[in-house]
Each structure stands twice: as structure tokens, then as C-alpha cells.
């Protein structure tokens, strides 16, 4: 589904990615993990074409992303921080995004799911962070694309919404989609992901299932496994 070869990216003097090689197969949920500033978001944005790599190639569904941007119609992307034009109403925003991408009716179901009906006529500037994130989720999941990229999807969500999100992700996975997630909430990652990609200092440090990770680090649980990677490397 997604193949990344020898990806390099520098922001000014700061080398963020230095030679990432990664191959993500069809179907399943992949969690991209790593400490702050390790290059998770940069990696994702590179796949989306929002960051232009210095070196390396990325192919999505067999097409090199450099050639054209059509592949992006096959990706649903949830940005990390939901910044919306503040003088737009929720309804207008959803309508606009549908107008820009393609018509769909999925939004009604998702609005019901996240109980957003009361907010539809409110301006985005007046919404709380959690509500904004729900709107963000609606915008992402309403298009039925084979690849879904979620950057910190849990930010600001209340427990009920979190459960609904997990259900949603599982449902999408059941349709045979590929889902890439980044998150800091380890329990969430552990619960949903099939495979982990751990990035450290701009390189892939580990790729495999959670059990493999536990075995590799000799830790009984996932959180400790991650922590041990970090302490080992910083020591």
C-alpha cells in the first residue's frame, strides 16, 4: 500500500528524517510511534505530499507521489491540530469539504454518531477543542477511501467518543482498509494496532507486532517496552 525508501528531510539545520525505509501492506492498523520531535508527523506529511522530501521515494498504491497528486483522493487524512476558519459554521464547513472533494452521505451518520447535531449552526471559532476534533473526525471518515491516516486522533475526546472512535476504526479495518495512526496514548495504540512502527532520531527503530516488541525488550507490558527503548537510547 505505502512504500517508503531512503527518506531524508531536513528543516533548516535540523535533520528530522534520515533514511527511513518502510513498507506498509494492505489492510490492518499501523501505529507510528516515537518521542516528541522524532519525525512522526513529518513522515506522515511526506506521504501526504505536504512536506517535500530532500531525498528518497514514496509510492502509494503503486504510484510514485512525485508524479501527480491524484493518489491523494485515495487517502483520508485527519490533521493533528484541528484549525478551522473561525468564521465558518460547522454545516458550511462540511458542505464545503464535500464540495471540494466529492458528494457523500456518510456525514449524516457520523454527525449522529458523535452527537454533533446541536453544533451544526455554530461557528467553528466558538467550539471547544473536543468538539472541533469530532468535526475533524467527521470530515475524515465521511469519504470512503482505502487509506486512512490519523494524526493524534484522540486529542480532546471524552471517553464515550473515544470508544466510538475505536469502533469506527475497527469497522473501517473490517472493510479491508489500511489505517495509519500516530498517538501518544499507549493504551489506545495497544488496543487498536496490529503493527507498530517506532521512529527514533529520524530512523525506523522497530517495526513489528506488539508481542514482538515485548519479546525484544523483555518487558511484560507495552508501555514499559516503549519506555525501555527510550531509556536505553538516552542512556
Amino acid at each position, binding site marked *: 500500500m505505502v512504500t517508503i525508501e531512503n527518506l531524508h528531510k531536513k*528543516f533548516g539545520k535540523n535533520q528530522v528524517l534520515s533514511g527511513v525505509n518502510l513498507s506498509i501492506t494492505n489492510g490492518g492498523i499501523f501505529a507510528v510511534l516515537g518521542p516528541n520531535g522524532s519525525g512522526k508527523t513529518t513522515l506522515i*506529511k511526506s506521504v*501526504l505530499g*505536504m*512536506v*517535500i522530501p530532500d531525498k528518497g521515494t514514496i509510492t502509494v498504491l503503486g504510484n510514485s507521489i512525485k508524479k501527480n*497528486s*491524484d493518489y*491523494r*483522493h485515495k*487517502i483520508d*487524512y*485527519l*490533521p493533528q491540530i484541528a*484549525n*478551522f*476558519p*473561525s*468564521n*465558518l459554521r460547522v454545516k458550511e464547513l462540511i458542505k*464545503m*469539504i464535500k*464540495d*471540494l*472533494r466529492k458528494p457523500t452521505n456518510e456525514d449524516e451518520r457520523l454527525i449522529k454518531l458523535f452527537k454533533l447535531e446541536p453544533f451544526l449552526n455554530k461557528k467553528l471559532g466558538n467550539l471547544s477543542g473536543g468538539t472541533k476534533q469530532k468535526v475533524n473526525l467527521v470530515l475524515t471518515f465521511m469519504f470512503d477511501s482505502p487509506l486512512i491516516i490519523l494524526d493524534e486522533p484522540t486529542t480532546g475526546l471524552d471517553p464515550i467518543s473515544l470508544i466510538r472512535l475505536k469502533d469506527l476504526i475497527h469497522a473501517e479495518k473490517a472493510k479491508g482498509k489500511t489505517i495509519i495512526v500516530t498517538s501518544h496514548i499507549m493504551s489506545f495504540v495497544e488496543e487498536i494496532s496490529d503493527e507498530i512502527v517506532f521512529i527514533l532520531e529520524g530512523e525506523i527503530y522497530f517495526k513489528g507486532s506488539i508481542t514482538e516488541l515485548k519479546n525484544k525488550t523483555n518487558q511484560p507490558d507495552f508501555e514499559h517496552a516503549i519506555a525501555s527503548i527510550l531509556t536505553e537510547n538516552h542512556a
Partner: protein
Amino acid sequence: MLKILKYSFYDLMRSRWSYVYLAFYLLLGIVLLFLNNDLSKAVITLMNVIIILVPLIGTIFGVMYYYNSKEFTELLLAQPLKRSSIFLGQYLGVALSLSMSLILGLGIPFIFYGLFKSNAIWDFSLLLITGTFLTLIFTALAFNIALSNENKIKGFGYAILLWLLLAVVYDGLFLMTLIMFEDYPLDKLSLVGTMLNPIDLSRTLILLKLDISALLGYTGAVFKQFFGTNFGIIISFITLTAWVLLPVLRIIYKSKKKDF
């Protein structure tokens, strides 16, 4: 791109700045025409407004819109849209809404004044056309500055500096060059100097209507040929178009290279 243009345009139509701008021009037009009651004087004042204020407002507004619509841009970037169409759409949204404010704001009072019956309609159209060109040029330059500077304060600084450079400093240097080399034939130099600055070029175009008698009171075959014929007007408009296209091309180029 048209969809983005549409949404940028709507977005601007909601913001109160467009109305302030429109109201300013309306007021100016009304004051000039109905309180002054003198069309010739009004046209001179209008020329000053168009060659000084329009570029200033275009730059400031362009930079401001770019920084203020960061969220909108980010949202659009998350969608499967072409980058060049995102930025071109936004640029055209700003430039067109500014041009519309200019044309409506000045046009409405003039129509009420009875413009269609007067001979001044061509002069006036020329004023509006150059005003629109200047809006397109300076908004494009503003977008260039904003695209190259993440830092808002820096961006605003450069924008003001650019305006100051083209509106005032350039003419000062130009004047000094002409005086310094007064012993040499200068007509080609002065024509080239005018062409290189869109504000000077627009001013000269309007001068052709306003002060033709003064401009002809000066020896120089190149000059006369330029001003006397349509050739000059055509060249001027080609140059103005180039002044729009070059920054726009850079917007496309820059937006393709930029990381978000």
C-alpha cells in the same frame, strides 16, 4: 481552483475589512464628486489614490489575508487538492475582492454623477483598469512575501518595505540617476526606468491622459513616439501583465516547494 476562489471570496465577503475598503472608496468617490464638484480635480486626486493607496492596501491586505487564513489553508492542504490551485485560488479571491471594492466603490458615485454621459468615461475606465492591475500585482507580491516568510512580523515588515521602495524610494533613485547623467541622452533610460516599476508605469499611463501637454513639451524622439502612439499603451499593458504573471508564477513555484 475555482471552488477555492469561490470560498476565499465568500470568506472575504464575510470579513469586515472588505466593507471598510469598499466604504472608503465610496466615501472618497462621493466626497470628490459631490463636495468638490470639479471633475478635473477629482481625477487628479483619484490618480494619487490609485498609484499610492491601491498598492499599499493590496500589499497589506494580501499579507494579512495570507497569515489570517492559515487555518483555512491547512484545512485545504489536508484535502486532496493541488497546491497551486489552493494558493492561486486564495490569491485570486483576495485580488478580485479588492478589485471589486475599488471598481464598485469608485464606480457607483461616478455613475450617479452621470459618468456615462460625460467624456471622462475613458479616462475614468483607464483609472480603474490601472487600479485593478496594481491590485493584482501587489497582492501577488504580498503573497510571495508571505509564502517566503513564516514570521508574521517579518512578513508585514517586508511588505511595507516593498511598497515604500516602489512608491517612493525608486523614484528618488530614478530622479538622481537622471540628474547625474543629464549630459547623456536619457529618453531610453527614462522609459526603461518607468517600465521597471509598476507604480511608475501606471502613473505614466494616467499622465498620458492628464498632462499630455507637459509631456510633449520636451524633446526626445523616443519619448514622443512612445507617447504619441498606441504602441506605447500596448507596450505598457503588456508590461503590466508581465508584472502580474511573474509574481503569480513564483507563487505557483514557491507553493510547490514549500513544506507545511
